[in-house]
């Protein structure tokens, strides 16, 4: 493998494909010509790219849940409930964790036990085991576009199956579905495997089929400073565009400070547009805002508040879509009723705030500029260490900690960076590790954290970080001493 940020040749792609389709028995049902024909008949209201573009043009924020169960008919029932009762604009199919690790034998155990016990023992839809015809069955029995949402380092077979099955969007990327989701898979391997997934989307585009791709924005979902997630989103977007992806949704996970959250999405949009222009990619861009990804309060009323607060931020930030949490979040996978409640609470806020906007005031502008400056510093350095090649740059940047994601499980992540909230709740850098930043930027973060230390009359330390991690589940944003 000679990893380069260069479009995979047809020879290479089709050679890899021959092998990929043998990874599980359902791979043999993928027939690209037949799939293009099927996809060309998928109506516009079930095409992700078309619906996202429409929403972006009209300044609307679409609402999408997460959901998936082990069996096909139950999954269809779940999605219909979220569509009809919840009012979801876009539908997901969250994929179970065995599929994410390519452990299809264990999926089969989960499917068998789920049938036996008459309840889902899997935390998602085992899409590879169910295969192309069941993906189509799902799509044909709902009225919205369907997207696969997962966390799969090697999603090549999964991507082949979902697209042939009529699902027009795929979440993931070589960084965002590795570092937060794997322990010992190399970045060379995941970037290469995701180049395949992106190239597949590109080939569909070249055959007239619109496919949306979405790098996973929130990463570990735990106090990730916006400049880290924005840098990853833009880099994965550029890698995808090189493979021919034409419709991209870049993501961000709510931090909890309204100003910082609005600023992060605005910075992401502005900066992504300028990078795509600079590198000559003509891509339709949209954004996705993830409601709070950290620990939730157990109390359902309190959970609704967290959900609503995220909806406010998503709406005022002007995100194209928002991914919804549920009042069961603290306890694990929600019932369909709880899931629909989360969607309804979100839609209510989106509707209430629809014609409102917040003007750019000086604090917001300053936050946007600071995020852009920090992000640019990281991305420029990645290009530099890759000697102009972005894929090579990413590998080297993680080796040296130029890119670093807090609290990630991967051994290929340095894990030196430490985030912490400032005295107003915005997420700052306690320790930059080896992430590059100008001295005045580092001093600025230090000053903000020292302000909090002085207010709380304690030293700025790792204890504060732990307090911040648990704060929201305890009903507060900043982990103050009790």
């Amino acid at each position, binding site marked *: 493998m000679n990893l380069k940020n260069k479009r995979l040749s047809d020879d290479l792609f089709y050679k890899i494909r021959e092998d990929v389709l043998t990874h599980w028995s359902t791979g043999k049902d993928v027939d690209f010509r037949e799939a293009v024909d099927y996809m060309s008949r998928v109506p516009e209201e079930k095409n992700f790219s078309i619906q996202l573009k429409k929403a972006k043009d009209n300044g609307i924020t679409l609402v999408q849940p997460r959901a998936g169960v082990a069996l096909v008919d139950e999954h269809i029932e779940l999605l219909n409930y979220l569509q009809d009762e919840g009012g979801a604009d876009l539908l997901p199919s969250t994929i179970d964790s065995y599929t994410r690790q390519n452990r299809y034998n264990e999926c089969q155990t*989960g499917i068998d036990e789920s049938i036996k016990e008459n*309840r889902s023992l899997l935390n998602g839809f085992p899409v590879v085991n169910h295969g192309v015809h069941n993906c189509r069955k799902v799509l044909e029995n709902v009225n919205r576009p369907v997207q696969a949402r997962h966390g799969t380092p090697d999603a090549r077979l999964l991507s082949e199956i979902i697209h042939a099955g009529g699902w027009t969007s795929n979440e993931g990327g070589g960084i965002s579905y590795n570092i*937060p989701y794997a322990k010992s898979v190399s970045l060379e391997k995941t970037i290469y495997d995701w180049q395949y997934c992106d190239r597949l989307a590109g080939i569909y585009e070249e055959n007239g089929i619109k496919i949306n791709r979405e790098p996973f924005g929130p990463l570990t979902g735990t106090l990730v400073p916006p400049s880290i997630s924005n840098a990853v989103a833009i880099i994965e977007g550029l890698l995808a565009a090189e493979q021919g992806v034409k419709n991209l949704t870049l993501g961000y996970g709510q931090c909890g400070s309204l100003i910082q959250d609005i600023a992060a999405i605005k910075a992401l949009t502005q900066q992504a547009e300028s990078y795509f222009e600079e590198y000559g990619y003509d891509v339709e861009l949209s954004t996705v805002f993830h409601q709070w990804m950290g620990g939730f309060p157990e109390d359902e009323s309190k959970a609704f508040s967290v959900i609503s607060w995220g909806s406010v931020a998503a709406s005022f930030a002007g995100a194209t879509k928002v991914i919804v949490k549920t009042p069961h979040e603290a306890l694990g996978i929600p019932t369909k009723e709880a899931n629909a409640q989360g969607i309804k609470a979100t839609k209510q806020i989106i509707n209430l705030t629809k014609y409102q906007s917040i003007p750019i005031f000086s604090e917001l502008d300053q936050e946007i500029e600071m995020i852009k400056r920090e992000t640019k510093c990281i991305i420029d350095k990645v290009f530099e260490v890759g000697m102009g090649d972005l894929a090579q740059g990413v590998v080297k940047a993680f080796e040296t900690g130029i890119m670093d994601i807090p609290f990630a499980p991967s051994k290929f992540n340095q894990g030196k960076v430490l985030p912490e909230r400032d005295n107003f709740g915005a997420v700052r850098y306690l320790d930059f590790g080896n992430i590059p930043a100008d001295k005045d930027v580092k001093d600025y973060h230090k000053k903000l954290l020292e302000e909090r230390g002085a207010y709380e009359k304690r030293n700025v330390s790792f204890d504060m970080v732990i307090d911040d991690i648990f704060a929201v589940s305890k009903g507060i944003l900043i982990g103050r001493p009790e």
Partner: protein
Amino acid sequence: MGKSIVLGVIGADCHAVGNKILDHAFSKAGFDVVNIGVLSSQEDFINAAIETDAKAILVSSLYGHGEIDCKGLKEKCIEAGLEDVILYVGGNLVVGKQDFDIVEKRFKDMGFDRVYAPGTSPAESIANLKKDLGIGIDTMAV
């Protein structure tokens, strides 16, 4: 104290944040934490416990597959000569919102000594473990 314990997240689960916090909290409380991290198989737990002469195995599961992943762990421990090793499990152990008493019973029937609901503070399991291992209350500095 020199009591070593094995800590890890079982199955295909990659939730790393709680694992890092438990590592921090148990280490601070004086345990020698052998943290095998996320995505760990039953065999990984058992091998680590044998290699380090661990007194307890602490299993986390956040993603709902805990039932499938934990089945047979106790039996494998017994086979490996670890019948006296204390077994704890905690997290979001099942799919869907289920009565915790039922979940607790299900996992105790599987051979776990203690079962923790989501949101349990590390201090509680540390206190329990000290008690179960017969470590004096006076040495508790959580």
